[in-house]
């Protein structure tokens, strides 16, 4: 109850721009609101409400950190930014992890046995309007959409995107460049349309209930050394050169589609 009151208080403060360090020994931070300048966090970061990284701001999550995303108790039915769930909206710059270092985990905070167990109030990381995200040695899980890239760019190296509803959505000219990427277990692995750009060198897209990869019209695609395995529909898209893709155990490997998309 005490925690919930604290959470409510934080939500009432519309711009908790300074992250709060809550313990003296371990580095445990609570993060919510609109950030300014550069914010560097490490160890344990509790995302307790929406966070926006506006143009000109930079959020750095250092290697070895864990970001725990809380479902808010509010009836947030008007999306503050894009989702009614808790979201990390980036119009500035987001840097998560580093090469050759301990991985960063981003996942929902769910108390075992609580009413929330099994559900997720985590919308995901949303890179929009020129935002830039760099992810290195990162594991993203439990989100509605792990990574939305809309008119923005994301560069991933050694990243696992697992157990999200949607893995990656590219639209509105969003650019995604990934190396050694695993996207597995969800409804859909990658959705790309609206002049998006998808470039994956060495990747696995595995075990989705619907599509592994959906390529809409206007999506520029480079897929090299990519295995698409165990999805219902492996690849949905047209005019796609598939020679560098290995299809394994999809119900349907490659489905052409009509030309649609925003």
């Amino acid at each position: 109850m005490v925690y919930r009151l604290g959470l409510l208080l934080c939500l009432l403060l519309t711009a908790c721009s300074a992250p709060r360090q809550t313990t003296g020994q371990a580095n445990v931070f609570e993060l919510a609101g609109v950030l300014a300048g550069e914010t560097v966090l490490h160890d344990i970061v509790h995302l307790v409400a929406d966070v926006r990284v506006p143009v000109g701001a930079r959020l750095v999550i250092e290697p070895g950190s864990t970001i725990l995303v809380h479902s808010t108790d509010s009836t947030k039915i008007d999306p503050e930014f894009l989702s009614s769930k808790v979201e990390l909206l980036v119009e500035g710059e987001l840097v998560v992890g580093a090469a050759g270092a301990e991985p960063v985990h981003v996942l929902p905070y769910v108390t075992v046995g609580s009413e929330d167990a099994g559900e997720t109030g985590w919308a995901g990381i949303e890179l929009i309007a020129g935002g830039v995200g760099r992810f290195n040695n990162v594991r993203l899980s439990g989100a509605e959409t792990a990574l939305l890239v809309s008119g923005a760019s994301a560069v991933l190296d050694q990243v696992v995107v697992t157990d999200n509803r949607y893995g990656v959505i590219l639209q509105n000219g969003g650019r995604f460049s990934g190396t050694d990427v695993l996207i597995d277990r969800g409804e859909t692995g990658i959705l790309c349309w609206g002049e998006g750009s998808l470039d994956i060198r060495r990747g696995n897209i595995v075990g989705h209930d619907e599509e592994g990869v959906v390529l809409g019209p206007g999506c520029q695609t480079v897929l090299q050394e990519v295995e698409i395995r165990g999805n219902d529909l492996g690849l949905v898209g047209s005019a796609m050169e598939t020679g560098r893709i290995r299809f394994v155990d999809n119900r349907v490997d490659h489905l052409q589609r009509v030309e649609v998309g925003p």
Partner: protein
Amino acid sequence: MRLLLLLLLLAPVTAWAETVYRGEQTLWQDTVWEGEILIDGILTVAPEVRLEIRPGSVIRFTRNDTNGDGIGEHELFVQGELLALGTAEAPIRFTAAGDGFPGFWGAINMMASENDNRLEHCLVEFAYRGFHAHFGRGKVRDSVFRHNRRAFQFQESTVSIERCRIVDNFNGIQFRDSTVRMVESTVRGGNWGVRCVYSDIELVNNLIEGNLANGVSLRDSDLVARGNTITRNRRGLYLQRSRGEIDGNWLQGNAEHGTFFEESDINLVGNRIAGNGRAGIRWIESGGTIVGNDLSDNGEYAVINDGSDEMSIGRNWWGKSSRVAGLVRDQSDRADVGPVRWDAPLPQEPDLPQPPIPKKDRE
């Protein structure tokens, strides 16, 4: 003499060119604006006071962002009545005092304003919330909302939107606990097009296109949708725990699903639901009538039943293929969902003329 003085006191104040309001001020008596107005603060229109804005006026708001959240705070706060009645030749413009961007200034706020606030032939741009109301009433006609963070946001309000263009805003229209009628308007180029909860909404002959999330999204609401074109959004129409009377619409070319019904009760009659990327209809634990629609040429499936209940479909057009089963995903494909039963396909493509496109978007 006393009578003359009294009349002068009661007469509306007319503000002429280059009127400036600085800091927090309140209009305590009826006021008429004409010409250039600069609001360099928060201007309140007191209860029972009318602010009338004459055609051709330009209202500019300065930038003030005290908490650094990127959202401007200078605004017009109406507790009385706002009449902003421009003309086609001389529209009224609400804009930024400087190089504008979405969120440069705050909002046209209408709070507990019981009279009908009216905006006609207005251009509202660069606001955080172009039209914002709580417990308010509004009629907005022939107006343009562009480059706002949110064009419309309101709750516990009754709002009529006619022949408006709501384009290139971060989000288009979002509201809760409200009654809305939108006619012959365009909502284009945002993230969310129209989004609401706990509301009654009637949509007639609108164009809702090119929004990056859902075109129209309702939760716990009632919808009447007739003659709308909902196209090139990520999803077209999404109803969750809602009721819908949906007829004569074109829902086509949306990237994911043309329609998505979850725990909803709908009558889906005579619509063109074609050429959508993933499926024409996605159905989860819903009920109602699906008849006389064109379900052809959707990317993966015409119909998906992802609920555990049986889904029953009347006579529809499925395209030239006679093999409907290949266009349906149901229990025959996945054991954990219900079956889809369908009546014999219509023998030929139904005549479903394209709904009228709002006049200014026909070109």
